């Protein structure tokens, strides 16, 4: 209360300030403003009613609001896309299954080569002379005697061209030189057939290096068949050689017997003639 008394003069002055009253237009202008607010309110409620009516539609029920009408075609487009994708996916899956079934059937069936392919293969196999193989074997055998097996042993290359692992190499390592030379001969044949494989690729248009497993399997089988046929031919060649050697031996014996007959003396013949006459 002391503070109130302290500034009593200024308080009085403030209290005596004339009271400003609202103008006569105050209420009318306020009424106008209120009417504007009411109009805005009613227009909003009308808009809301309109929106509610629209929202009763099928898509509005799904989408919840009509404020985004672009959602309707977007939703339709999405459904169509999903349908197409599903159909395509099922078809592709079915096709893949059919293809794999066919391929398994093909793999089970024996490999049949065309006559052209067989002829070309035969020609290419005949190009390799057996003498070359033997000479190569001899050379390698000599090298082994000088350098040792392990240093000379070439990496075993599979038909596909993969280098086999060291462990596998150890397992397949042979101590016998003859066996080793045979192995080298087979290796030589394999490398040769790799070349023929390339020729096959050029002729048949089948890319063996293609990552398609089925194609490589097919080519492998073909190459295996070729290797087998070559081995058989080699055997045949060996048999022929043996027969030749035997025939030569027989011939030599015959010649020797003929020679023996030729060496019979004339005196012996005369003696024999006399004995026959005497008898």
């Amino acid at each position, binding site marked *: 209360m002391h503070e109130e008394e302290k500034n009593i003069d200024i*308080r009085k002055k*403030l209290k005596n300030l004339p009271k400003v009253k609202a103008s006569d237009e105050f209420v009318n202008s*306020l009424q106008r403003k209120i009417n504007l607010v009411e109009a805005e309110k009613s227009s909003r409620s009308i808009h809301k009613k309109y929106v509610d009516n629209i929202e009763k539609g099928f898509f509005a029920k799904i989408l919840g609001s009509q404020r985004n009408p672009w959602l309707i075609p977007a939703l339709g487009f999405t459904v169509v896309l999903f349908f197409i994708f599903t159909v395509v996916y099922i078809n592709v899956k079915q096709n893949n299954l059919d293809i794999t079934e066919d391929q398994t059937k093909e793999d089970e069936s024996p490999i049949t080569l065309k006559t052209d392919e067989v002829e070309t293969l035969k020609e290419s196999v005949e190009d390799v002379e057996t003498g070359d193989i033997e000479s190569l074997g001899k050379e390698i055998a000599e090298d082994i005697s000088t350098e040792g097996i392990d240093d000379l042993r070439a990496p075993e290359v599979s038909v596909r061209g993969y280098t086999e692992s060291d462990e596998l190499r150890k397992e397949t390592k042979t101590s016998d030189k003859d066996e080793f030379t045979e192995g080298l001969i087979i290796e030589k044949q394999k490398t040769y057939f790799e070349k023929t494989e390339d020729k096959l690729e050029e002729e048949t248009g089948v890319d063996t290096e293609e990552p398609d497993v089925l194609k490589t399997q097919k080519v492998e089988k073909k190459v295996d068949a070729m290797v087998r046929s070559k081995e058989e031919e080699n055997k045949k060649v060996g048999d022929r050689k043996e027969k030749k050697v035997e025939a030569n031996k027989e011939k030599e014996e015959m010649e020797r017997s003929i020679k023996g007959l030729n060496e019979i003396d004339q005196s012996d013949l005369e003696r024999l003639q006399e004995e026959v006459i005497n008898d």
Partner: protein
Amino acid sequence: MSNNNPDYKSFTDEELIFKFQKEDVEAFNEIVFRYKDRLVNFLFRYTGNRDDSEDLAQDTFLKLYRSKHLYREIAKFSTWFYTIAINIAKTNLRKKSRHKAISLSSFDPEGEKDFELTANVISPDETANASIENYYIQKAIDSLGESFKEVIILRDIQDFEYEEIAQITGLPLGTVKSRINRGREKLKEILSEIYKPEE
């Protein structure tokens, strides 16, 4: 807008607002009738501008019209209503101060700066003041800081109790009291500087 129903005059402010909350527009009319002059006077003293005070008073009634449902009987209606008014007035003052800054910085191609009329320049609004002293008192109020001005007007012009002022401004009671005293002293000081009455 005129209210001819004598029953509404007997209602308290709180009863009227509750009636208005039940969509009784007559109750709102009675509130406007009771508060329009008080509110315009308060806002005139706060802003120092007659047109602004009327506009702000109308905005305050509009706010009441829209937000009637927000009133709860935890405070007096007058306290709640003046809180709305003071917030609207503060927002308006901030907007005006921003506008003033832009206007002062704007460039005049003819070389004559067209400054906004500031509170220090006499305007037709001052016709409301009967005497020169009143005019200077208003100038002194305008020159007070916002924090002092609102409490001085609420206490010494609008006759609110300290507790009510604390509720309206959201300040602690002690702060309100000290601000009122300091405000008065400042006002006295300003008045003594700008106005020396001839004896």
